[in-house]
């Protein structure tokens, strides 16, 4: 199957310090990939790089012909102003931006799609509520409804199941599986190893650099996990410039 994502020796980071170091590889179209690793391993950084919020320090990320704006990206802690006076319906409707833009009308068809997305995440009856009245778990359902409407080929979710209860996680996980069933490419940063083992065919174990990448059973071995936990989190302020050859740039 064709690759949806191609990492060409990607290094991503902040102020020249790498947070993801020399990552190469491909994510095939329609893959369901869990990205795991200890705190500070670079999971969020990698997803931000894919979403186009962070430019690589070196190397490049190929999106298989997609524009950055065609990716549905859900950040770890969305910076949402929940006091803003907007209803659940309108908020979810912003997921149609790529389809309707500045002026496109919200016709009967679009209304039905918005209502269907709200129903799909189990928020029926909340349509006219201001978003400020939602609980943490309901907020996460709301964000999933917007991702649903974005109708993206590539979906990137950063720790979407943090601090939400088992019922909500299960409902949202079912949505992730539905997207997988629709042959969309889905990447998730996750912490819960049991959930990864039970539900995700492929895993990337990240600890700044890639520790292991492949089928989940082969990646999640005690040896690999031990290597990942040994990663040194702190940046070395006096580190020298990275001397590793970068073949993709030399080529």
């Amino acid at each position: 199957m064709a690759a949806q994502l191609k990492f060409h020796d990607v290094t991503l980071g902040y102020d020249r310090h790498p947070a993801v170091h020399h990552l190469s590889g491909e994510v095939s179209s329609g893959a369901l990939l869990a990205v795991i690793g200890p705190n500070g391993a670079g999971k969020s950084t990698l997803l931000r790089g894919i979403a186009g919020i962070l430019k690589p320090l070196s190397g490049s990320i190929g999106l298989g012909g997609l524009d950055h704006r065609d990716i549905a990206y859900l950040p770890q802690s969305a910076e949402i102003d929940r006091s803003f006076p907007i209803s659940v319906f309108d908020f979810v409707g912003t997921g149609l931006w790529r389809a309707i833009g500045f002026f496109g009308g919200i016709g009967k068809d679009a209304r039905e799609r918005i209502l269907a997305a709200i129903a799909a995440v189990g928020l029926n009856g909340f349509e006219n509520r201001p978003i400020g009245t939602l609980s943490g778990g309901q907020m996460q359902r709301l964000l999933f409804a917007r991702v649903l409407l974005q109708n993206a080929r590539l979906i990137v979710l950063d720790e979407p199941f943090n601090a939400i209860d088992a019922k909500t996680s299960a409902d949202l996980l079912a949505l992730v599986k539905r997207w997988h069933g629709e042959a969309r490419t889905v990447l998730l940063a996750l912490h819960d190893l049991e959930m990864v083992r039970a539900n995700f065919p492929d895993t990337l174990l990240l600890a700044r650099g890639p520790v292991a990448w492949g089928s989940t059973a082969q990646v999640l071995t005690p040896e690999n996990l031990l290597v990942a936990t040994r990663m040194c989190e702190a940046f070395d302020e006096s580190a020298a410039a990275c001397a590793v050859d970068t073949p993709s740039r030399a080529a």
Partner: protein
Amino acid sequence: MLAGALIAPFTEFEFMRRALAAIIALSLGGAPIGVFLMLRRMSLVGDAMAHAILPGAAIGFLLSGLNLFAMTTGGLIAGFLVAILAGVVTRSTGLKEDASLATFYLASLALGVTIVSIKGTNIDLLHVLFGDVLAMDDQTLLLVAINATITLLVLAVIYRPLVIESVDPVFLSTVSRAGGPAHLAFLALVVVNLVSGFQALGTLLAVGLMILPAGIARFWSRDITPMICIAVLSAIVSGYAGLVLSFETRIPSGPAIILVAALVYAASLLFGTVGGVVWQLFPRRHLEA
């Protein structure tokens, strides 16, 4: 008798009719801008900008007299200059944006007052500082109306990105590049409306007819569309009542309008259905579900 006091000033005197027309135009343009300023937590930025644009408007005023076009252009240039300089200082020194903006607008205000008082008369200075809605000539009135029209048209264009950027800036930046331009266009609209407000209310109170109605609307609605409508309506009502008050007493028109708006605000603060003090002090019994 009462009806006479409420209507007669406008049927009898042309300058009152002009003033009312100017107030309605100002309300239509300024109040929606004020709602966005408030929701984006920029209420005081609006105030700072009102002072920052003074030297530009003053130079325009000196070059071509009370020509609103020249004053608007000068004000736009000064406003953007201050906004950009404050941004540059913030980025290059690590000083917080509000601190650098405060420095620039104070210097700017001082410069503006200096320019006006060196070249103009004391009456000019009073006019710039406090405005005079009762002295609108045809040209000024027309330009206030044009500014309101431009504001509504541009706001219609940037409405969606502006709303999305206010709620969830990261989302907008991942799906569109409209966020930055929309924000800049919004700042330009703030300046345009402040310059319009100059004529009626002066540099010190120009922002009043933008922010107070927005604050009033916050107490009556939880959704942005009715909020904008309520803000426009309360701005028009405050403007009308302020004009009548100013006509019947000897209070200057600008302060009269803002004082009426402040009274409406106080009433909303007490009795508003969304978070009003009275409803909090005497809560109704909680619901079943």
